[in-house]
């Protein structure tokens, strides 16, 4: 295990790192002579907002369209409840994030930075606000905007929509923000973790970044582990296997058999197939699993996978932006039916109906919210196939939970 990079320095409990400490530890902000876009592209840095899109490519796309009037939206909304990495990073390393934002803004010819921080992440908001005031003579306008506390508020087009019109609901794309975003200008939307890594790469170079990483994808990443004794946010090398992380987090061989990978919009996977999987966005994608926002939520042995899935689907249905029929009605239907299965009042034809609806809902919303829910459901029906079967035959829960509870404790 290599040394932490983003999380190097004082521990998170010490609070936000001040400007002087930040400069003392890492040196001052690098000058503008380096060709940042080329460096970032060469580093292979992938975005950490959930899509794992190459950061260099995004920088280039916006820079190519910018006439000096581009905008940068620093995405710290973190609407995914299972993810805590962004709020932790904002609260402890605000200057690293600001460095990354200033460097990226310069590279794309932006004249404004918008810090879009989730309203629930108070420490992060305070830390960033204080960090901005610590910097004198910023070369461009920087403003902090509080993102609404909703699951889809962090989606790219929703964030831009909120900045433009105060409405944090996704819009139909095209056009994507890199073409027309804030004030109809080319807008770079980048996750806070991506910008923090960008700031380190600008200082130490792409070769330094590529020294870490065990598989196809170089570097390190922040993950949020829950359902384990030593959970929380940690920095791991790309390519670390899930089983290793389970072990690092204090899970013994009989403590958990399944994990939710990526977030609520991610996929369930079981010990047999999953523990050997490397945490590498590219390798995971070819295995049909998402890296997502680096969430690893382990399911305890006494917890029912069907009930857990039903609870998540319920939440996803409630968090729909209520703009597209297939999402509103579709998620409602699959949530209700999965809950019926979990509560053992469903039949086997209900399972067929779930699959039918999954096929109907996928890809038919303005954003990928319904796709995420469908993906979760289908992965659950595979990972917990036996459970779904016994539940639909009303012959009890394999997790040996007498009455599957949907109120699952964290």
């Amino acid at each position, binding site marked *: 295990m290599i040394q932490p990079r983003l999380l190097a320095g004082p521990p998170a409990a010490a609070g936000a790192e001040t400007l002087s400490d930040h400069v003392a530890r890492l040196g001052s902000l690098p000058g503008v002579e380096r060709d940042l876009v080329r460096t970032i592209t060469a580093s292979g840095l992938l975005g950490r907002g959930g899509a794992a899109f190459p950061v260099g490519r995004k920088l280039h796309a916006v820079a190519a369209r910018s006439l000096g009037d581009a905008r940068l939206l620093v995405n710290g909304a973190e609407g995914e409840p299972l993810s805590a990495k962004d709020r932790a990073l904002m609260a402890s390393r605000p200057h690293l994030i600001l460095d990354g934002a200033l460097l990226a803004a310069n590279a794309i010819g932006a004249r404004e930075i918008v810090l879009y921080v989730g309203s629930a992440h108070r420490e992060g908001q305070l830390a960033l606000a204080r960090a901005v005031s610590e910097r004198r003579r910023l070369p461009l306008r920087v403003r902090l905007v509080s993102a609404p506390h909703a699951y889809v508020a962090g989606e790219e087009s929703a964030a831009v929509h909120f900045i433009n019109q105060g409405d944090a609901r996704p819009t139909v794309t095209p056009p994507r923000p890199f073409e027309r975003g804030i004030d109809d200008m080319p807008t770079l939307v980048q996750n806070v973790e991506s910008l923090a890594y960008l700031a380190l790469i600008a200082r130490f170079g792409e070769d330094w970044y590529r020294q870490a990483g065990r598989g196809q994808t170089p570097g390190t990443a922040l993950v949020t582990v829950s359902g384990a004794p030593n959970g929380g946010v940690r920095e791991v090398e790309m390519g670390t296997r899930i089983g290793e992380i389970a072990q690092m987090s204090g899970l013994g061989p009989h403590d958990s058999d399944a994990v939710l990978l990526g977030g609520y919009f991610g996929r369930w996977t079981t010990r047999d197939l999953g523990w050997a999987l490397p945490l590498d966005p590219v390798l995971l994608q070819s295995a049909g699993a998402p890296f997502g926002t680096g969430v690893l939520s382990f399911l305890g042995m006494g917890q029912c996978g069907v009930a857990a899935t039903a609870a998540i689907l319920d939440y996803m249905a409630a968090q729909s932006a209520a703009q*597209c029929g297939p999402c509103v009605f579709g998620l409602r239907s699959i949530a209700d039916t999965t809950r019926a299965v979990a509560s053992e009042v469903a039949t086997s034809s209900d399972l067929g109906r779930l699959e039918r609806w999954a096929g*109907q809902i996928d890809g*038919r919303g*303005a954003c990928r919210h319904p796709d995420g829910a469908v993906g979760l459901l289908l992965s659950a029906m595979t990972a917990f196939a036996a459970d779904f079967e016994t539940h639909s035959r009303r012959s009890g829960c394999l997790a040996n939970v007498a009455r599957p509870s949907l109120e699952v404790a964290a």
Partner: protein
Amino acid sequence: MTPALEAAAKLVVDPIVCDGHGMCAEVLPELIELDDWGYPILVAPLVPAYLEPLAKRAAAACPVLALRLIPR
């Protein structure tokens, strides 16, 4: 492929504007089906030439102009 089957246009639905009226599926059942909640599924988004006039009618029939026929 015969000219009548070649596709020069495709159908797109704006899912936010779409209100599930379903007139498009009435006019163009060859290419549009309704899901279990009355919203259109574009079974085949590419429109063969012989169906283009009907596709234009379907787009014009939409009460909220959610369905559009655009060049491929």
